[in-house]
């Protein structure tokens, strides 16, 4: 393995960074969490003490070097402490999606052979107890919230605060051991193991070393000039690599403060109260926020509406240029200033984004209108392209070179090459060590020279050197006539319409493209309410003739825009249907990160897919669904199959490689 660089100043691990922060930034806030309606806060010195107490407690419980400690809970300081405390005693933290079902959790825990788990509450404890018998190596559970757990058998259950208490008491006995273990940590020791959700197959455990995490955090922080003064809101799943980089890697490297919301439901309020300066959200979140703003504006008074639209038009015209520091006329600048006072400022404040200096989105394509909306308000929203295997960063958009349809240039220290097949490869100090207990996958993903296959197809734009991603490499297929089939590209175009929540396009090896569509209940429901259209369920709304008409309009618009691009004109959607249920991760139709699983959907709804191609007008179908509590049920419906107009194109042309 190429040693790209050595740790600067002996800062070779997260615990080492913690020690530095506790020394040099002792009184600065490290963590805040809203609890009982008030923001509680911990300085770096206090955080270091909490973590040490827990680490000693781990020793007391018998955690050995190399043990895996599973961590499942929503973003709370306690779980970040647990991860760092695990590192302190030479164990490996394995954050797990807290909303995963017992089965999924069992797979991960079994795969890594976790001996310990630090979890939030009764819900997680119940899940673990349910699968405990199958986990031969699993021993002890540590929980944070004691509610409802009093009557449980406490021989293997420990309350977080008590573990810390025992740890503090054992300082004299175990302090030396802890110091010894901490001193053994090097740039090459394992920092964290993260399971990738994977669009197919079982999750893989990505092993990231201290080098990976610290190098990636360091160079990305320099790229965006992050300082110890940043405020971030930690609200994305802790099991996701992004949260690990933002809330631990970059936070510890820069010594900035991580703020934890009170609960998932209060996220928006907490966002406003904290006013983060550095903010990440997937496109979905930005989309929801924008939809909410638009709905609220529909209900506002006439004057307010007029003012809003007037200034938003202005912002769309000059806002992005002002943000990028390009020349803009004096008058427009003044008007933009006025708009800032009347509309943009209050709006940003409502969104909780008024202090954002650097904002990122990634994970999937973001709608151009959505992206432009935020940028025109003066919010420096950018895109990045990354992967768990890369410790997030592959490409980043530099300030002033932000565009909607590219993902930017190679992040500092990252080399990128495009293979013959169009697949994107990269190599960087952040590149993962290996997949845990899975040498075959490691070998097929990462070659001996350290190049990693992303699985995405893309190309560099000749003029700007920005990378453009088209689709998953394996999803780019051929239609029956040999024309290029890029389903995700089409799906994204469809999903840019607020009324469409999800789209799944089919056509690989077929004569024509068709699509399944999920309507967005918020947007369409609101429209229905305004037009006095009554509906009792998602299903009823989804089948409403006027809704189908609207969706057909959207599909035809997409077709027109596809027709403009000769490479993709054959991907026009000939026929579609609006599904009678929302695609759901619980039913296996999507990944936990809400990416559609095309093959599984095609299999599950084979009857519907068949009907799209056999020319029938409607079809009756029954589908099994899983409720939130795990019970199963079924729903049935008669679905209309709708023909969409397509723009005639030149005779088939074989797609160029």
């Amino acid at each position, binding site marked *: 393995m190429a040693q790209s660089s050595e740790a600067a100043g002996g800062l070779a691990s997260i615990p080492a960074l913690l020690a530095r922060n506790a020394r040099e930034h002792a009184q600065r806030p490290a963590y805040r969490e809203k609890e*009982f309606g008030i923001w509680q806060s911990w300085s770096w010195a206090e955080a270091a003490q909490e973590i040490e107490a827990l680490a000693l407690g781990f020793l007391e419980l018998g955690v050995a070097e190399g043990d895996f400690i599973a961590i499942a809970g929503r973003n709370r300081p306690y779980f970040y402490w647990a991860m760092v405390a695990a590192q302190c005693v030479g164990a490996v933290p394995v954050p797990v999606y807290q909303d995963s079902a017992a089965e999924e959790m069992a797979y991960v825990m079994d795969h890594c052979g976790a001996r310990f788990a630090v979890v939030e509450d009764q819900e997680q404890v119940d899940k673990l107890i349910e699968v405990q018998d199958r986990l031969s190596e699993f021993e002890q559970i540590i929980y944070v919230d004691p*509610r*409802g757990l009093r009557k449980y058998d406490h021989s293997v259950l420990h309350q977080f605060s008590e573990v810390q208490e025992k740890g503090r008491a054992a300082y004299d006995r175990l302090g030396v051991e802890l110091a010894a273990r901490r001193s053994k940590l090097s740039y090459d020791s394992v920092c964290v193991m993260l399971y990738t959700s994977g669009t197919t197959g079982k999750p893989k455990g990505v092993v990231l070393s201290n080098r990976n995490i610290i190098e990636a955090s360091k160079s990305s922080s320099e790229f965006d000039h992050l300082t110890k003064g940043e405020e971030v809101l930690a609200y994305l799943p802790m099991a996701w690599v992004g949260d690990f980089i933002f809330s631990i890697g970059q936070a510890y490297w820069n010594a900035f403060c991580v703020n934890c919301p009170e*609960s998932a439901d209060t996220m928006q309020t907490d966002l406003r109260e904290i006013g983060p300066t550095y903010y990440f959200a997937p496109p979905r979140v930005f989309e929801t926020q924008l939809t909410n703003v638009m709905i609220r504006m529909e209900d506002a008074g006439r004057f307010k509406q007029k003012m809003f639209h007037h200034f938003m038009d202005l912002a769309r015209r000059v806002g992005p240029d002002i943000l990028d520091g390009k020349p803009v006329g004096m008058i427009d600048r003044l008007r933009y200033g006025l708009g800032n006072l009347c509309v943009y400022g209050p709006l940003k404040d409502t969104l909780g984004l008024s202090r954002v200096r650097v904002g990122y989105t990634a994970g999937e394509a973001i709608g151009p209108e959505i992206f432009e909306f935020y940028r025109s308000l003066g919010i420096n929203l950018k895109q990045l392209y990354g992967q768990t295997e890369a410790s997030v960063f592959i490409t980043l958009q530099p300030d002033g070179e932000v565009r909607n349809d590219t993902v930017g240039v190679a992040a500092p220290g990252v080399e990128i090459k495009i293979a013959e097949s169009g697949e994107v490869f990269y190599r960087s100090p952040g590149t993962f060590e290996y997949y845990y207990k899975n040498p075959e996958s490691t070998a097929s993903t990462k070659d001996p020279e350290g190049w990693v296959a992303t699985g995405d197809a893309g190309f560099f734009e000749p003029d700007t050197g920005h990378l453009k991603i088209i689709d998953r490499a394996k999803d780019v297929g051929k239609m029956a006539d040999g024309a290029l089939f890029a389903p995700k590209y089409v799906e994204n175009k469809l999903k840019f319409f607020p009324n469409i929540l999800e789209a799944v396009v089919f056509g690989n090896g077929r004569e024509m493209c068709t699509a399944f569509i999920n309507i967005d209940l918020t947007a369409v429901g609101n429209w229905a309410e305004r037009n006095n259209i009554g509906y009792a369920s998602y299903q009823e709304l989804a089948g409403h003739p006027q809704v189908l008409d609207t969706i057909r309009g959207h599909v035809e618009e997409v077709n027109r825009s596809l027709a403009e691009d000769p490479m993709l004109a054959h991907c026009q959607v000939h026929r579609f249907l609006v599904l009678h249920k929302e695609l759901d991760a619980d039913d296996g139709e999507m990944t936990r990160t809400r990416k559609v699983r095309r093959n599984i959907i095609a299999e599950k709804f084979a009857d519907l897919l068949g009907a799209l191609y056999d020319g029938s007008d409607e079809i009756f179908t029954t589908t099994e669904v899983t409720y*939130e*509590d795990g019970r199963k049920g079924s729903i049935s419906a008669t679905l209309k199959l709708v023909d969409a107009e397509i723009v005639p194109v030149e005779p088939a042309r074989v797609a160029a490689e």
Partner: protein
Amino acid sequence: MLDQTEGFVTEDGRKIGPVVMEMKNITLRFGGVVAIKDISFDIREGEIRAIIGPNGAGKSSMLNVISGFYHPQEGEVWYKGAKRPAMKPYQVARQGIARTFQNIALFEGMSVLDNVMTGRFRQMTSGFWAQALWKGPAEREEIANREAVERIIDFLEIQHIRKTPVGRLPYGLKKRVELARALAAEPSILLLDEPMAGMNVEEKEDMSRFILDVNDEFGTTIALIEHDMGVVMDLSDRVVVMDYGKKIGDGTPDEVRNNQDVIDAYLGVAHD
């Protein structure tokens, strides 16, 4: 098995204490209609006591007798070892008996926080003038009460609607806010009037969990009314069954389930 005067420990390890409230031969009439006919039962400290029966059996009337909204013509109410004189509902509330209502009685115009704060009325002891002049003790009291309220808000998972006017909330959440307000009073007995009425399965499960958690965490004595027999049987320690204003059964859920009168009342001719 239930005659231990000093209390006992249940199978799942909860302590049930001595009798805290006893209804003795209660009869309640509205004009010529007899709503409750010579009913006696008791409530023990720390237990979940259910009163069930078909619609119109007189359950709600019984709850209103306990909470002082109705005054029975005959019979006695004994509370904490003493006979309770005729009392106004607010006096009963101040004695530590909090309640919720079947049709939800919240202060719709006030925020969730303010609603729950009113639940602390009993705990706010500083006088009118101290309050009016906002003196130190009154301020400390306000802060202490706010803390207690925040713990309940956290407990019932309603943080996200803390500042929302109650009138805007959906039904299920309103029920939860009402429970929060009653809990805020730190009651000796918590009366729940059909806590699951009008809820879907999921909401019912949530509410059941909250009721059990409240009993478990705070040791609160709970008396509840339900006509949905299934829910009640899983929740309660002891059940009183009423029909046509009379008591037809009283005991553990298992005892009641096997009681012939109860089976007849539930499976016999429906009377709404």
